[in-house]
């Protein structure tokens, strides 16, 4: 099943490795940033497996030469994508991007506008809210290995979303953002700049999808999630790129005092997908929950690197990652809890569980702790195992066919993570996505037989 991205047709646009993207209307300070980021990207060496942050990773899958800046899409394609971008019932609004293009005008509900909520495409936000962008846009350095690709993102980013929730405003209904890969070998650079002021509350769901599951492509996204004092930020991401896509996603969350950030990543798609998550707790009473599940089959490789950085005393973080691995798939987890000097009275937890469903699946776990403070409670755990035979026997003895029983057990294994979200509408949606993945797997097995 190993594939090399098909050669590009000559008429397709220029390769991404030629120059920074031109954001024609961007102010000069931003263009200057893009140019210098491009230099950084070109200067930094490509990762090799010997680099600790890339240990175990299939770095050879990150050859970027086949990928191109996508063409602009025609109306029929746009309509089709819009039609497929079905928001969940509770969503207040949606933004749909395909191949870096915004497909419909952003319609912010009037009640949100009234309360001072800003939701704008990134290019417009750069012009109209330069202070917000300057302060928060990629303010956290990419320290989990992908500095080179963060620079590439900065140089190439042309579309994305700014969400700003002012002081005391609580949005109960989630905002939904879709990013699609459409054309063959497109390179996309999704960005989300989510800023909450004091005591604000917001939920954002992001979907990464391919219009054609077998189309190769490249995605390199960055999210800045800023939880202001006392704010509550929930971020959910469903990563369902096509099975030949190579993807990098770098998320940085800063949690101010008494704020709470929760992120949940549901990783289903892509050939190689790397997810870097930095969570910085910078104020007392801050709390960060980092949740993720991955369902991997075929040759899929999910590479997760995380850092729970406790920079302030009396902070709390809790990470729970679960991976179910079938066929020849792999999961890599490299996580670190870092308790900085003086960040006393920290509670930090980290748990990774791998469920190996085939003899060729592989799980690499590197849970880490660096504790430089006193009076901390920290623990981490990593387990790798398989489906419990007794549980399987129990289900089989009740007449449930083996494949259904297996699916039930895997679903149950992952459900613990989903339930932590505490939002039944979103969780229902996620469960459906997971079922779809299982159904596709089943269809493939059938076709093969």
């Amino acid at each position: 099943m190993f594939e090399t991205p098909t050669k590009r047709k000559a008429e397709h646009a220029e390769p991404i490795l030629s120059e920074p993207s031109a954001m024609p209307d961007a102010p000069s300070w931003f263009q200057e940033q893009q140019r210098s980021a491009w230099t950084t990207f070109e200067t930094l060496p490509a990762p090799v497996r010997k680099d600790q942050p890339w240990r175990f990773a299939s770095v050879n899958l990150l050859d970027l030469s086949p990928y191109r800046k996508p063409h602009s899409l025609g109306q029929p394609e746009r309509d089709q994508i819009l039609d497929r971008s079905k928001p969940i019932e509770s969503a207040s609004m949606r933004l749909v991007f395909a191949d870096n293009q915004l497909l419909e005008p952003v319609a912010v509900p009037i009640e949100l506008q009234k309360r001072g909520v800003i939701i704008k495409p990134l290019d417009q936000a750069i012009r109209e809210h330069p202070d917000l962008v300057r302060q928060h846009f990629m303010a956290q350095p990419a320290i989990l290995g992908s500095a080179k690709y963060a620079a590439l993102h900065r140089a190439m980013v042309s579309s994305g979303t700014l969400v700003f929730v002012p002081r005391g405003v609580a949005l109960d209904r989630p905002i939904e953002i879709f990013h699609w890969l459409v054309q063959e070998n497109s390179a996309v650079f999704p960005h989300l700049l989510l800023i909450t002021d004091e005591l604000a509350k917001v939920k954002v769901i992001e979907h990464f999808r391919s219009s054609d599951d077998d189309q190769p492509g490249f995605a390199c996204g960055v999210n800045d999630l800023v939880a202001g004092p006392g704010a509550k930020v929930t971020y959910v991401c469903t990563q369902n790129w096509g099975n030949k896509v190579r993807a990098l996603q770098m998320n940085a969350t800063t949690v101010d005092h008494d704020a709470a950030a929760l992120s949940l990543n549901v990783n289903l798609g892509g050939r190689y997908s790397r997810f870097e998550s930095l969570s910085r707790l910078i104020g007392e009473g801050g709390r960060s929950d980092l949740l993720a599940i991955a369902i991997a089959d075929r040759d899929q490789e999910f590479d997760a690197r995380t850092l729970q950085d406790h920079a302030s005393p009396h902070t709390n973080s809790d990470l729970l990652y679960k991976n179910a691995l079938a066929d020849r798939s792999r999961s890599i987890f490299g996580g670190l809890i870092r308790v900085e000097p003086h960040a006393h009275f920290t509670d930090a937890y980290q748990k990774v569980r791998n469920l190996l469903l085939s003899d060729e699946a592989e799980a690499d776990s590197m849970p880490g702790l660096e504790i430089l403070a006193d009076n901390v409670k920290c623990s981490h755990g990593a387990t790798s195992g398989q489906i419990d035979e007794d549980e399987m026997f129990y289900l089989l003895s009740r007449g449930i066919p083996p494949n259904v029983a297996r699916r039930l057990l895997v679903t149950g294994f992952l459900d613990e993570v989903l339930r932590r979200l505490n939002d039944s509408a979103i969780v229902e949606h996620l469960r459906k996505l997971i079922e779809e993945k299982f159904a596709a797997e089943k269809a493939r097995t059938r076709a093969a037989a």
Partner: protein
Amino acid sequence: MKTETSAVDIDRSIGDFSYQVDYKNDAGVGLNEGVVNYISDVKEDPDWVREFRLKALKTFFEKPMPTHWASKDLEAIDFNKIRYYLSAGTQPKRSWEDVPEDVKRTFERLGIPEQERKFLAGVEAQFDSEAVYSNIKKAVGEQGVIFVGSCEGLKTHPEIFRKWFGKVIPTGDNKFSALNSAVFSGGSFIYVPPGVKVKHPLQAYFRINAENFGQFERTLIIVDEGAELTYMEGCTAPKFNTATLHSAVVELVALKGAKIQYITVQNWSANVFNLVTKRGLAHEDAEIKWIDCNIGSRLTMKYPGVIMKGRKARGEVISIALANDGQHQDTGAKMVHAADGTTSNIISKSISIGSGRATYRGLVQVPKHLKNCKNNTECDALLINSTSRTDTYPAITVRGTGNAVQHEASVSQVSAEQIFYMQQRGLTEAQAMSLSVNGFVNDLVRQFPMEYSVELKRLIELEMEGSVG
């Protein structure tokens, strides 16, 4: 080599212990082919050993320092300022009077009688241990056990020695194993014939003392089918040597059904870089257990490993590390499962005091198509002061179904309630702290042989002194 052979074979009297060595053997400062050739000449190495050394030297020069993951403190080692070979004759005379005052006080606080203090200071130690050792040697010698210095072993028992030497830890395993392979001197060679269960532990701390100059000892232990051996090495004493680098290589081979227990109590003085490579190869049904305690040194990097090559082989690492002010104990374990039904267990406890830093680094590998492999890893860290630091960096690779691996780590501190409770009952804060810390490691300390565990507890108490308030 003369001094070494004598250290092993001759039951010396006090008088001829200290200064019976000739003064000619000094390879000078720095490292080059000449030094390696010099060592080979002095030791009258067979040609294959000389070639082995020279090849290793090349590997050493080619290998980079592992600073991309390891402590930057390694850069403080200046390979050009180290004496790689120095025969005992050039060492200063040693007597109890030469031992510095603070060290004498240390012994007093330890409650060690003068006789023993002298022993620990490395003055009369060799004689005393030599006698003990010789007795053991006589008893086990009748059972066919070979226990000699490694340089003697390679000459007198090449048929066994060559078969395994450098096979468990290849020269190029890391920069320091290459260095050791180039300049090794001293260490033990042990062969236990099939079915022989050595009752008494074989001990080696006297030998390290006897070979103060030999910072690069090399140990090879082969335990044949169904045989059993316990080996203890250590410098339970603070060492006063001026050398800054200790880099040993220890290879263990447990053939079918054999059992090896290797116990180390490391208490180098705080100016020593202790960079040691230790690994065992366990064949079918064999068991290798490393019991490792690190209290001394400036920087220790040591990750005892077991390669479980045969079915149902078993590997275990029990590790205690105590990092006091200015120390970095970078320890851990390596478990490579290479056959069905292999099981491994790692239990590591570390204590960081003052500005001390304790690091656990682990590697667990279960390759695919193996069945019923199990690994259990537990790492607990205790932080005493607000400036103390602890890190945990495990790497676990599991392929396939039918195997179970679990890793758990926790970091905690001595609870204020516990201390308060003990102070209520009349203990001083320091005593309470020390009791608490001893409680933390107690279940592991008990795995050490009696004389070690008693001393270990005392050492921990000693290290704890002055760490409170």
